[in-house]
C-alpha cells in the first residue's frame, strides 16, 4: 500500500511524517515562551484562536540550535493526534510517496536487539527508516511525539 509522507529537514537529515496526521503547515513564528517548560518547548502560538504548543525538533533531537529563518515551518497536527500541537522544523520538503513495505520498522529491530540502553528521544518517536532513491527518510510517529515528555520520561 502506498503511504504519503510530509517530508522535512533538520539540518541535512531528512524526515517524514504521515501526511494524514498533519493538518497544516504554518508560517506563524511568534512564539510566547513558557518558562519552566522542558527546553525543547519553543512556546505557545495562537493559530486561529487555538493555543498550540510548539516543540523544536532540533532541540528534541539534540541538534545544534538554529536561528529561525524564512524557511522555518511549523507542522500542525490534526486533533485526532492529541491536544493542539506543532513541531518546528528547518524547512519542509515535498510529499513523498512510498510503498509501506519499504519502511524498515525500528520497533521490530529494537525488540530483537539491544533494548537495555536508555532510549534517546529520537528513538522513542521514530517509527522506522525508508530508503529513497537518493536519500534516507526517517519516519516519525506523530502520536508518540505529542506524548513524549522530554527529560521527564527518562
Amino acid at each position, binding site marked *: 500500500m502506498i503511504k504519503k509522507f510530509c517530508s522535512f529537514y533538520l539540518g541535512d537529515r531528512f524526515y517524514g511524517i504521515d501526511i494524514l496526521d498533519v493538518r497544516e503547515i504554518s508560517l506563524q513564528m*511568534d512564539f*510566547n*515562551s*513558557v*518558562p*519552566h*517548560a*522542558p527546553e525543547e*518547548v519553543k*512556546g*505557545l*502560538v*495562537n493559530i*486561529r*484562536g*487555538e*493555543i498550540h*504548543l510548539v*516543540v523544536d525538533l532540533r532541540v528534541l533531537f539534540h541538534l545544534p540550535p538554529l536561528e529561525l529563518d524564512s524557511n522555518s515551518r511549523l507542522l500542525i497536527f490534526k486533533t485526532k493526534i*492529541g*491536544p*493542539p*500541537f506543532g513541531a518546528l522544523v528547518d524547512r519542509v520538503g515535498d510529499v513523498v510517496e512510498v510503498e509501506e513495505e519499504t519502511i524498515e520498522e525500528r520497533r521490530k529491530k529494537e525488540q530483537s536487539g539491544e533494548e537495555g540502553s536508555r532510549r534517546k528521544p529520537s528513538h522513542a518517536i521514530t517509527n522506522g527508516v525508508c530508503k529513497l532513491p537518493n536519500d534516507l527518510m526517517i519516519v516519525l510517529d506523530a502520536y508518540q511525539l*505529542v*506524548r*513524549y*515528555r*522530554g527529560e*521527564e520520561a527518562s
Partner: protein
Amino acid sequence: MDDSILQDFVIESKDHLSVIEEGLMAMDEGDADVHSIFRSIHSIKGASGFLGLPTLSSLAHIMETLLQEYRDEIQMPTPDGVDALLKGVDLLTTMFDDISNSDDVDTKDVIEALNLLLGKESAPDTGVGAGGAEAAKCNILEGLTFDEEELRKLVSTTDFAFVLVFPKDRKQDELNEELSSLGRVLSMVERDDVIAVLFVSVLDGDMIQGATELDANCVIDVGNEEIDLAVAPAEAEVAPVAEAEAALAPKAEAKPAAAPVAKPVKAAEKKDKPKGEAVKVEETVRISVTLLDHLMSLAGELVLVRNQQTMAVDREDSNQTRLVQQLDVVTTEMQDVIMKTRMQPVGHVLTKVPRMVRDLAKKLGKQIEVILVGKDVELDKTLLEGLADPLTHMVRNSCDHGIETIEKREAKGKSGQGTLTIRACHEGGQILIEIKDDGAGIDPAIIGGKAVEKGMVTQDQLAAMTDKEITQLIMMPGFSTAETISDVSGRGVGMDVVRSSLEKMGGTLEINSILGEGTQMMIRLPLTLAIIQSLVVEASDRRFALPQVNLEEMVCLYDRDVVEKIDNVNGQEIYRLRDQLLPLVRLRDLLETSDPYDENIRSTIASKYRREQDELYEKAGDEKVLQSLYIAVVRSGLGRFGLIIDAVSNTEEIVVKPMHPYLDSVKIYSGATVLGDGSCALIIDPDGISRHCGVGLANAQAPKESEKAAVEESHSALIFRWGAEEYYAVFLPMIRHIERIKLADIQKVGDKDYITIEGQSVLLICLDQHLNVSKAEMKEEMYILLPKYTRAPFGILVSSLEDIVQVSAEIHADTAPEDGFLGSLIVNDKMTLFIDVYRVLESAMPHVPHEVSTNSAPDSKIKVLYAEDSLMFRQIVSGYLKEDGYEIDTAPDGAEALKMLKAGDYDFLLSDLEMPEMGGLELIAEVRKLEKFAHIPAVALTSLQGDEARQKGFDAGFDRYENKIQRDPLLATIAELAKEKGLTA
C-alpha cells in the same frame, strides 16, 4: 434491525420518559396533563411494537391502559397508581439503557401491580412474565448465610443489599478488605465458578458497580422477594408455586380498554380538580457535540478573519467601514451564542432530585420538602454529567441521615416536615452548589472519636481542631467503614468517593454542620469554558494573566521604600503589609528558576537585589533615586504572598484554555489564554507558585484578623470613571458636594476651565492634565466633585459616577502608583485607584508656592507622632509629612499615643482632638505633665472650628491649632513651630 432507527427510538423515548416522569410527579401533587403523559407512553408503545421489542411493548401497553383510564376519567389517579407507573418508568429507563437486552428485564412485578389497579388479578400475558418468572425462580441467595430479620430491616430502610458475583480467581480475604471500605460484607460463598458475596451498603448499585469494577449483571439487587425465595421451605418447590399462581389468575381479556372494573368515582369531585398547566417542553433540535465543537472552532477562525478585515479596511470609505462594523457585531454575538451551546442548565440534574427524595421519604417514613433554587444556572456539559452521581449520593445522605423522622423532629420542636434545599449560583468565577438540610447535623464529638479510633488523627491533633475541621474528616478516605453505618448513623460513608469525584473535575467539597440544626454541603466547581476576569501583568517582557479571584490588592513601593520596606528573614524577602508579614516572590526570578526554591535559591535572589540596590544608591550619590516596585498581593489556598512583577498592563476578560498535557510537569501555570491582541499568555497559578517557592504555608490564617479590622475601619468611597479604562475613587468624607453639569456650560479662561456653581466660579480639574492617566470620555453631561477643606473653590471633572461602596481605608501611603494617588484597592473585582484630592489640587494651582517648608537638617530627621482615629486622615497626613522629610509614627487614639511617647523619643506631637479612649485635650494635658515632654511642640489638628474650641486647645497645652487637611498651611505651621522650638536651624 437497522441500528440507527433503534438509536433514534431510544433517544426519542428517553425524552418521552422524562415527560412522563415529570407528569406523574405533577399528578402526585394533584395537577397534571394526563393527555401529554398518555401521548408519550402511547408513542413508546407504538414504536416498540413496530421494532419488535415485546417486553417493552407490553409494559408500555399496560401503562398506557391505566393512563387511558385516568384520561377518560374511568378511575382517578391514586398514589398507588402513580407509584406503580413510576416503577414502570424506571423499568423502561433500564430497558432503554440497554435496548438490545430489553427482553431480559423482569417486568412481572410491575405488570402485576398495574393489572391489579386495572382490576385484574395477575399478568395475563405469559409471554411477558416468562422471562421474569425464570429469573425469580433462581435463588440468588443460595448458600449465603444471613439473619433474615436484619436483612429485611436493612433493605426496607436506608440500605441497599446486593449479591456481588466475582470471578473465582479473586482472593476472598482481599475482597473482604476491598468491600469493607464501601459497606458491609454479610456473607461470602464460593459456588460453581464464582464467588458470591452478600453485601449491604448505602451506596446504590451504580456506585457499587463503579467502585468494584464489576459488570452490571454481576451486581444483583436483593429485595424482599429474593429473601422470601431464599427462606422458603426447601420442600416447597419454586416452580410449582409460580405455576399455582398462574393457575389462580383468571384469564384476562385481551382488550384492556374494555375492562373498567373500577367504576368512575363521583364525577362532581373530578370536575373540581384543577386541570393545572401543561408541563412545558422547550422546542429543541438534537445536535451532536462534535458538530458543536466544530462550529466553535469555525467561529474562532471567523473572528480572526474579522480582525484582519477590520485592519485592512479603508477608513475613508464609509460604506466599507459600516459593513465591517456590522461584521464585527455579528461575529462577536455569534461567538457568544456558540459558546453557550455547550452550557446546560444545572436543572437537568436537579430536577431528578424531587423524585428521588419522594421515593426515599416514603421508604423512610419521613416528610421531606425539596426546594430547588437556581435551576437556570448554566454549567458546561461535561461538568454537569460528572455532577449527577455525587449529587445523588449527597441528597441520599441528607434524607437518610440528616433529616430526622417526623416524631423525632417534633420532639425537638421542629416542624415534622424536613426541608432539603439545593441552590446553584455563580460565585467568584465558580459555580456553587449548596445542598442544605435542616436535619440533625453532624456531631463532631462522635466523628472525632471515630477518627482517633481509626488512627487518622491523634488525640492531641483532635484537640487542636475546630468543629468544622473535624466535620471535614468524614471526607477522608478510610473514614467510611462498615461499623460507621450503625454507629455514626452512616454519615460519611462514601463521602470520600463523592469528594474525590468532585476533585477530579477540579471542584471542591466543604461540609458545614450545626448539631441539631442541619448540615450544609457546598460544592464548588470551576467553569471550564468560563470567561474569567484577570489582571494582565508583565515580567521579563512576557505577559501573564493573574485571575482576579486570587488578587487581593496591588501595592507599589517608591524610591527608597524599595530598599527599606523589604526585609530579609532567613533569606526570604518579606514585606510588612499592615502589620502582616508578606513573603515575596519575584516573578522575574521565579521564571528563571525551574527548581523548587530552597534556602539557597531564596537567599541568592534576596542578596542579588540587595546588592543591586546598594550599587544603585552608590552610583546615584546624593541624587534622589527614582524607582518603583509593584507587588501583587495574591491569595492562594495555602496562604497569601506578594508577587513582584515588572508592570501592570490592563485588566481583561480571558477564556481559560487548559495547559497542554506535554507540560504537565510545569506546575506554576493553571492554563493559557489568548489576549486581545492575539498573543498567548500563561495564567498564573498562585497555589503552584506558592508550592514551588515554599511560601504562604505559615500565614494562611493570619489575614482574617486584618479583614476584621478592615471592616471596622471602613469608609464610604465614591467610585467614578474618567477615561474609558480605569476606575477611580475618592473617599466620600472628603467631598463636599457633587454636581451634575453640562459640557456646554464650561467656560474657558486662558488655559483653564471654569464653571459657575451657586454663583461661584469653580476651577475645573481634568485628571489627565495632572496625573498620568488616560484621556477623558467627554460627554454631554458630566459630574464634578467639590472637595471639602479647600482654599479656593475647585471641582474635579469626572465622566461618570459608578457606585458608592464601603471600602477598608487600608490604603497604605506607599502603595501610591505615583504622585496624586493614595493607592489602589480592588473594588468589585476591579482595580480602583484612589485619588489624593489635595495633591491634585496643588498641581492644579501652581501659583501656590510648593516649598512651604523644607526640613533643613535632613540628617537629623524630626520624629513626629501623630494621634488620629481616622485611618484615612492618618494616611493622608503621614504621606504629606513623609514627603516633606519628617519621620512619622501614628497612633489610633490618645492612650496609645501616650504609651508610644513614653517609650520612644519623639520631637513633635500632632494630635486630633476627638478620639476614642483618650481625646487630644486629655492627651496633651498628660504629655505636659511628663518632664521629658513638657516643651514638646504640639499641634492640634482638628475639624473643630470656632474660637472657643481653639482656646480650649491652647489652654490644654497645644502650641498651634490647625484645621484638618490643608497641606501647605499645616506644613508651614509645623516647620515654623519646629524652628521656634529649636529643632531646626
